[in-house]
């Protein structure tokens, strides 16, 4: 009888061959991408020098040694101590005049696909316009998503699906966008740190290198009283401008600070082209959907109840052949696509609806169901673990199917 060990060995040893000519085609494609990336050296390079230094043990030690030597040397020469000149107030002060920001959020699992933000602030400091470019790993199944928030109106452009989602004058959506900007704004980040330091919730350690070309490093570590999502934040401050160049975020896990992501800040006060806050290339045949017309309003129902209701109405729409309605409950899938997916199934009636289960990986609710289907004259029972249900992006009060 086959043993577990045999199976393990079999999986490890099973091989394949690659065709030489196709292999060279692929290699050539990689080479082109590599050469192109070298030619278009990104603006990321500059701010990353210090990041690279601080991430490598050898260079970090070397950098530390240089700093120590510089301090000792200057102390010897001038025979006096050099006080730390930097105070976090300076960054808060410098940030007051910031009107434009370009941010990249980089996570270790998708370092090559950052989420990018462009924010324009009004003269009074309040957010005016924002654009977010989300790579497809953030919204699997939808392709890359571009979001623009302007004049209290949010639009999501799903290029691959050729769909423009619009939310008009909605308080919940606006509040969510403002919350997002609040979390990104470096001025607010340092202000909050200062407040927490005063409350004893955060301990700040400031490292100000003698070399003015190197960033000031502010390490903020949460004390037990702090309930932040990230227990350590490392801020890199430009010595000349006193503005934040980057913030690294860490979580405390099993006694160790685990690196989670980096927010990198660019182009302070470099005016952002107004066209960045417009979708210029939405095709004429793109489907326009007002988010207020899709999904179901939660009302007084609990999350579990509204999830079941969404699935029930979706199935009832399929039974009635009302694919337009089904499409409203499964946004992103046009009515004809829904028809193509489900018409052959020919659902006759709902037999039972199960209790929703939280899908841990996606944090969505899965609603199991049983329906009777008729295919080729035969009636059978179709059991399904259930579609994934969640509230719509930017619409916490409206729920819809997000995937099967």
């Amino acid at each position, binding site marked *: *009888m*086959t043993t*577990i060990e*045999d*199976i*393990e060995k*079999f*999986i*490890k040893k*099973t*091989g*394949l*061959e*690659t*065709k030489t000519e*196709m*292999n060279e085609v*692929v*290699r050539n*494609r*990689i*080479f082109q*991408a*590599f*050469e*192109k*990336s*070298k030619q278009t*050296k*990104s603006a*990321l*390079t500059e701010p*990353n020098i210090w990041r*690279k230094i601080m*991430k490598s043990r050898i260079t970090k030690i070397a950098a530390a040694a240089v700093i120590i030597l510089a301090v000792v040397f200057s102390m010897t020469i001038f025979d006096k101590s050099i006080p730390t000149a930097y105070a976090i107030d300076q960054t808060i002060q410098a940030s007051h005049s910031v009107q434009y920001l370009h941010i990249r959020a*980089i996570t*270790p*699992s998708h*370092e*090559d*696909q950052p989420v990018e933000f462009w924010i324009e602030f009004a003269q009074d400091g309040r957010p005016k316009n924002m654009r977010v470019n989300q790579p*497809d*790993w953030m919204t*699997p*199944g939808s392709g890359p998503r571009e979001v623009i928030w302007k004049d209290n109106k949010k639009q999501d452009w799903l290029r691959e699906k050729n769909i423009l989602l619009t939310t008009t004058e909605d308080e919940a959506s606006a509040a969510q966008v403002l919350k997002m900007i609040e979390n990104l704004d470096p001025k607010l980040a340092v202000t909050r740190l200062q407040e927490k330091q005063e409350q004893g919730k955060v301990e700040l350690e400031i490292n100000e290198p003698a070399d003015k070309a190197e960033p000031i490093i502010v390490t903020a570590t949460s004390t037990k009283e702090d309930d932040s999502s990230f227990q350590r934040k490392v801020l890199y401050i430009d010595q000349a401008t006193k503005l934040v160049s980057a913030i690294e975020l860490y979580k405390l896990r099993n006694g160790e600070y685990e*690196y989670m992501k980096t927010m990198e800040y660019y182009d302070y006060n470099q005016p952002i082209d107004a066209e960045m806050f417009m979708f210029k290339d939405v095709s004429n045949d793109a489907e326009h959907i007002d988010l207020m017309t899709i999904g179901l309003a939660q009302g007084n129902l609990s999350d579990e109840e509204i999830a079941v209701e969404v699935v029930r109405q979706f199935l009832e729409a399929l039974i009635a052949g009302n694919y337009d309605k089904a499409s409203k409950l499964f946004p992103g*899938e046009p009515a004809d696509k829904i028809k*193509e*997916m489900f018409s*052959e*199934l020919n659902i006759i009636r709902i037999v039972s609806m199960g209790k929703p289960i939280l899908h*841990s990986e996606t944090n969505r609710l899965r609603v199991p169901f049983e329906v009777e*289907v008729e*295919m080729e004259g035969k009636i*059978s029972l*179709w059991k*399904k*673990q259930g579609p994934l249900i969640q509230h719509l992006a930017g619409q916490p009060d409206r729920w819809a199917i997000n*995937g*099967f």
Partner: protein
Amino acid sequence: MLEDKLLVWKFKGGNWDALSRIYDKYREDLLRLAISLLNDISSAEDIVQDVFVSFAQSHELFRLTGTLKGYLATCVANRARNRNRDDMRHRTVELDDNEEVFTDSKTPDEWIICSEELKKLSNAIGQLPYEQREALVLHLQGDMKFKQIAKFRNVSIRTIQSRYRYGLDKLRSLLNSEVIK
């Protein structure tokens, strides 16, 4: 491992030979892994190509925290999972959730030649739930430790070990003895 660190160091400095060497070294392992995860040769080819292209484009930013193979395997697994979810959403709904078919559509441009063994193995692995499949292939083909997989999937090590064990048990019952001999 030291060789990998040197290769990465050269790659980050813009050295094409280093990237080419990394590609040669890990191409087949990643293809096997992608085939096992997706049960589809052409999708696996696409994903591995895309991973290397993205990797090439990221040379200035790239930072290695674990093993290079583990990193590349993680990239493949991420893309495979996205592709799998995408396929699940778009596939015409089937009556049986486990009705996945090995798409053996050969085209003139096909990059890889699968052995019969690999086809049989892929067919069997394709019948496992995705989480079990992922735990199995990342551990056995991606050389990732359970701890690394758990961290990558943000679940406990015990969960990954269970998925692995259940997957292996099911695979044993699926594979017939002639494949193993």
